[in-house]
């Protein structure tokens, strides 16, 4: 079991390392001279020279990569080209704000979707299933910006209960930001819920058709007990990975949603960085997203291992 954990950890680290190479390569692949590309056609030669200096462009690429990664490991993500501030501090602040949305979204969406998915699975092809499946199909078919726009129309304009845009800056306190969290969280939650519901439903249907569920039923157990004790542990295992995948996906979703609500999170920061061609900032955010993705999947795998006796005792069985 320990060696499984070790192997999984190693592979996670390897994936992060590979992603960092990909990110670095993508951003250094600007055609021509990076500095003059960033500054545009009208840049003065002096400005270009300063920027080259700032980006260490005179060094070979692999050396810059190593320096970047080395810095990243120690928490130094470089200096923003736009603001001249350290990237780490700025990203950290925005990350806190984004986490606020993410936590709310995850808590609500995951609970809701698992419950709905299991319900749909149990009432397969009857009206609760038809309703839930239909809604989740629509949920996964409309992009976040549409959901966000419709939510604004409904809850900020028609019935003005929640703010349509955030006026606070990134350093606002959590208390100040809290009222602004709900709409973005709802917008993000819709698609996420839709996907998890579908997965949970399929999984429940599969497991309920399994022989061990029939056996449990024929043992004379009540339906509730059959579902909770026998079916759900096996049914929720595969759902775990989809949940992890969706949590990781939030990082992408926030770009759009934060833009709609003008919410001061990582997504907005990312868009600013794109507009400013702020390479260090972009690199940092991409690396953090990749790390989040890998960590979520790692957590799901380890969680699955903890829940699945087959995986937990794999080593033991292998010996016999």
């Amino acid at each position, binding site marked *: 079991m320990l060696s499984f954990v070790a192997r999984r950890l190693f592979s996670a680290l390897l994936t992060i390392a590979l992603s960092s190479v990909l990110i670095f390569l993508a951003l250094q692949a600007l055609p021509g001279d990076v500095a003059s590309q960033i500054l545009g056609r009208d840049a003065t030669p002096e400005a270009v020279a300063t920027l080259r200096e700032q980006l260490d462009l005179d060094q070979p690429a692999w050396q810059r990569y190593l320096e970047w990664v080395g810095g990243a490991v120690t928490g130094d993500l470089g200096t923003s080209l736009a603001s001249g501030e350290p990237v780490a501090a700025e990203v950290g602040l925005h990350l806190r704000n984004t986490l606020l949305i993410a936590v709310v979204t995850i808590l609500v969406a995951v609970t809701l979707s698992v419950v709905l998915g299991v319900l749909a699975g149990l009432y397969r092809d009857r009206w609760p299933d038809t309703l839930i499946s239909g809604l989740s199909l629509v949920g996964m078919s409309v992009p976040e910006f549409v959901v966000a726009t419709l939510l*604004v129309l409904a809850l900020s304009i028609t019935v003005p209960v929640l703010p349509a845009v955030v006026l606070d800056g990134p350093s606002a306190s959590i208390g100040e930001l809290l009222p602004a969290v709900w709409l973005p969280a709802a917008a993000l939650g819709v698609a996420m819920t839709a996907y998890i519901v579908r997965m949970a439903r399929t999984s429940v249907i599969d497991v309920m058709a399994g022989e061990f569920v029939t056996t449990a039923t024929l043992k004379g157990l009540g339906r509730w007990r059959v579902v909770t004790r026998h079916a759900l542990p096996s049914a929720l295992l595969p759902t775990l990975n989809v949940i992890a995948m969706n949590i990781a996906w939030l990082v992408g979703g926030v770009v759009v949603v934060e833009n709609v609500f003008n919410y001061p999170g990582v997504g907005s920061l990312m868009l600013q960085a794109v507009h400013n061609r702020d390479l260090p900032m972009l690199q940092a955010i991409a690396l953090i997203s990749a790390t989040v993705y890998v960590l979520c999947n790692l957590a799901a795998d380890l969680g699955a291992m903890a829940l699945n006796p087959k995986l937990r005792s794999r080593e033991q069985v292998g010996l016999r």
Partner: protein
Amino acid sequence: MSGTGTDTTGRRGTLTGLLGALRGSTTAWVGLALVAAHLLVALLAPLVAPHSPVENDPANALAGPGWAHWAGTDQYGRDVLSRVLHGGRYALMVSFGATVLAVALGTVIGCVVALRGGWLDNLVMRVMDAVLSIPPVLALLVVVTVLGAGPLVIVLAVSLVYTPAVTRVVRAAAQGVAPSDYVTAARVRGERTTSILFREVLPNIVDVVCVEFAMRASWVILLISSLSFLGFGANPPTPDWGLMVAENRTAITVVPMASLAPIIALATLVIGLNLAADGLSKAWGVDRVRKGRA
């Protein structure tokens, strides 16, 4: 391959078999019909649109629905209906290109990797995982920052971003087929890898690939619309649904149709693709939901 004859029988069997299974699937047909309708509209937009989609008419700006403009006008006085009819062309074209590329690449890589296994499989999947770990929106924004937002760049970038996900799905499907006795029989016979791929493996995963195509297309359209919404896809004044929502969002109280019409168009297209994917996978017994989201 030592044998080169015309053996169409097997291939015809695959196709008729797959289509035959579709006969009873209302879901699939409704979905495919929706998609077909959208394709038709996009194709015929220049002929059926009542106005030019880009012509400004300040005098008639922000008009509600009426005889002259069935769905009203936007802030520049452009006809919303004409813009919506034209609005799918960019997204459909770019999405179609990107999806075809991603599915084709992913299928080839996935099959080869599944059949070969070993270090190649390990290496390729490791790289794929690394690409997967960067959220698509983010990856595209990075690419757009570096290379600009031309349609070709977007097509290539989107297909690259989604190739790993397709590879994973196809690889899993091919791995399901690879240990089958009929593949073993081909190996014992001494068939080459390409022959095993095209004769034994691919015909048995065509269904998976088709479902993957429909599903991937829906994600690609969502992604591309989001990009347009953020201002990195179609350039104004090109009519595009995502862009239209972005432009008219602020005026939603004045002319709701200007935002709602492109939303409805976009949603019906994606719902159509999802219904098609659901219907196909159910009719063919392909496990679609398991693919999760990547």
